[in-house]
């Protein structure tokens, strides 16, 4: 098997980026990712990208992004879904032995769209669409089912938001960079019961790009690569009613493949950091369980123990996670960029020692129907 490393990465400073176009966001991160590893666009063999037609208000949104991605006259393919899935495809391309380097690009500009309409349109036209279910409503049903099933208190989910907002305050790329108190979260406006505003990800514009290389190329560069040692992706049933919605089953499946590849048997001991996509606070607790950091129903206990906080046994979302910036489509790829920066000790500013192996997670679909995971190591 060919060893593949992530050698360069970049993300935008996320927020409402009114002065930028889709293309300018892409151009910015592609250039920065390349220069972060001392490569030029001419060194790239294949470009794999992720975008969303519905979010962009376009058909075949790559039609207009080929130039800005630097993919003119290159091998290029687009994935629908999170950029982390594009990263998995790029990894396959290099692992096949036919490509030495790959550029992965993901972008989303939700401020130009209606996030509500974008997620309502994910429902099927026959059963769910007439009900007007959107991402927030589906997540609210899930939060209720999860709390009910395991007796999780309201305070626990609010504490996820407190933890991640505190972390986001140290992340220069985050959109929300102010810590919040438990009271502020508990008293924030109710979106869809039981979800509150500060327990939900903001509407974010942003982009992320990554450069991957096989070991031969990676070792010739002047930077420390983050080696990819495992990946997995999975999709659960479509209808929320036909799933065990209180469990992140797709994440468990994706992680089990990634763990098998990377030889991880005890995630809490074997991983040093996780970056997960928690578009809603309760989802982080569910992911602790699905990703095997604790037993089913014990997410609350793990959070309260401090194990997933900064300085804990396995910090989760040191970047602040999706609750501090959620550039839809790029969110999962940003998780990977954060994980790479930590394991290689190439983080800007805020540094934490001893992070050797980290996993990034991306979620998709209503109430986390789909998941992708990738493990990177020093």
């Amino acid at each position, binding site marked *: 098997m060919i060893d593949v490393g992530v050698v360069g990465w970049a993300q935008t400073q996320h927020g409402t980026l009114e002065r930028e176009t889709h293309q300018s966001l892409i151009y910015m991160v592609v250039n920065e990712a390349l220069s972060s590893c001392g490569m030029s666009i001419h060194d790239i063999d294949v470009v794999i990208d992720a975008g969303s037609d519905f979010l962009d208000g376009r058909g075949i949104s790559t039609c207009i992004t080929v130039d800005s991605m630097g993919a003119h006259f290159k091998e290029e393919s687009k994935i629908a879904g999170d950029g982390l899935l594009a990263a998995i495809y790029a990894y*396959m391309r290099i692992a096949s032995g036919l490509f030495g380097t790959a550029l992965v690009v993901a972008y989303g500009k939700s401020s130009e769209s209606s996030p509500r309409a974008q997620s309502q349109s994910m*429902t099927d036209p026959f059963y769910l669409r007439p009900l007007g279910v959107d991402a927030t409503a589906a997540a609210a049903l899930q939060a209720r089912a999860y709390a009910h099933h395991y007796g999780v208190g309201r305070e626990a989910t609010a504490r996820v938001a407190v933890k991640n907002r505190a972390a986001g305050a140290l992340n220069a790329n985050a959109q929300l960079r102010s810590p919040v108190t438990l009271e502020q979260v508990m008293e924030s406006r109710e979106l869809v019961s039981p979800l509150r505003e500060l327990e939900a990800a903001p509407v974010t514009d942003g982009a992320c790009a990554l450069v991957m290389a096989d070991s031969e190329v990676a070792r010739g560069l002047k930077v420390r690569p983050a080696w990819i040692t495992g990946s997995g992706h999975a999709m659960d049933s479509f209808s929320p009613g036909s799933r065990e919605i209180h469990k992140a089953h797709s994440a468990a499946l994706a992680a089990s493949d990634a763990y098998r590849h990377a030889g991880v048997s005890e995630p809490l001991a074997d991983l040093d950091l996780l970056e997960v996509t928690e578009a809603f606070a309760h989802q982080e607790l569910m992911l602790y369980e699905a990703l095997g950091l604790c037993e089913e129903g014990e997410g609350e206990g793990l959070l309260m123990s401090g194990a997933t906080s900064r300085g804990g046994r396995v910090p989760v979302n040191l970047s602040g996670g999706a609750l501090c910036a959620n550039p839809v489509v790029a969110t999962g790829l940003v998780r990977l960029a954060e994980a790479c920066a930590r394991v290689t000790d190439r983080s800007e500013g805020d540094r934490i020692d001893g992070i050797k192996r980290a996993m990034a997670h991306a979620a998709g679909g209503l109430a986390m129907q789909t998941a992708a995971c990738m493990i990177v190591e020093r």
Partner: protein
Amino acid sequence: MTRPVAVIGTGQTEYVSRREDKNVPEIVREAGLRALDDAGLKPGDVDAVVIGSAPEIFEGVNYPEDWIAPALGLRPGPVMRVHTGGTVGAATGIAGFYHVASGMFDTVLAVAYQKLSDGVPQYGLSACYDPLWDRDFACGAPALVGLQSRQYLDRHAPHITEEHGAMVAVKNRRNALLNPYAQIRREITVAEVMSSPPVAEPLKLLDCCPTSDGAAAMVIAEERTARRQCPRPAWFTGVGTCSESPYVPHVDMAYPESCVRAAQQAYQMAWIYEPSKELDIAEVYEAFSFQELIWCEALGLCGPGEGGKLIESGRSELDGALPVNASGGVLSANPIGASAMIRQIEAAMQVMGKAGEHQVEGVHRALAHSWGGAIQFSTVTIFSDEI
């Protein structure tokens, strides 16, 4: 040397203008189960699914894979959707190839579909244009390919004429009579094409593909499974894709460089030096008649400007030396997201000896081509009976 990968089973739905008895997940399931059946496998044997469709605006469901893939009836597992416009069916097959070639998966089900009757196709295609600069024209696909065809005719006048396009339409509709899945199965004449109503100059109605509902699927596997399940697998021996800037005035539409480059890459991988001699059959994505000639030139199946001579010579006929679109091509059915995979399927079926009435004798090497976007994405896949 990369890991050997083959197509070991294919499945298609009958292509029709409006499929009323089944919804999108149901037609995808129909094609997927046919492909598994053809490969002698069960849903439980599949390690991963790759799914492809052109703009989801066609059916109006965002992230349609979340809705459609579970209907295949597989246990929850890896699903990835590829989305590259017109080339997507082929890009999906190619993604399936990389799933297996990477060593990450052994058996992959690749499916592609479109149900154009669920929406307004030219509205969906017009949404591809930039909202600030191009969209006011809302010209859909025929107007763009009208420009392409005109550029091609003008460049090679008087050696290429409108009758040459009509001859392609006649040939492919005749071939479609032998393809049970084709939508348009009617013998036509050059005179009928020439007198059919204008659509976008120089394209006339019979120069154009129909809009179709349908799905296509392939089972893609590594060597051991392939040899066990399939007497004559169609091995992927050449794969090439290329993307080009969308700025139309930059694109040489009469000899698209993305197509030339994708072909070069695939030929290099498959050790093909003289494509017109070494290939036994080609399936190209001719949504409009003139495109078959343009692609044949860019793929090196004839010289530049020799497309007219090619169709006149009979070489690309079903009984010619290098049959092109023995299936009837896109002119006979165009479920857009599936059409490029149908080209791969038809090429693979010819290698596998499973093409039925339109089977060509002695096919060892077959080419499948596709284009997409504003004539800016190209894919070329070569299948062979030997690794």
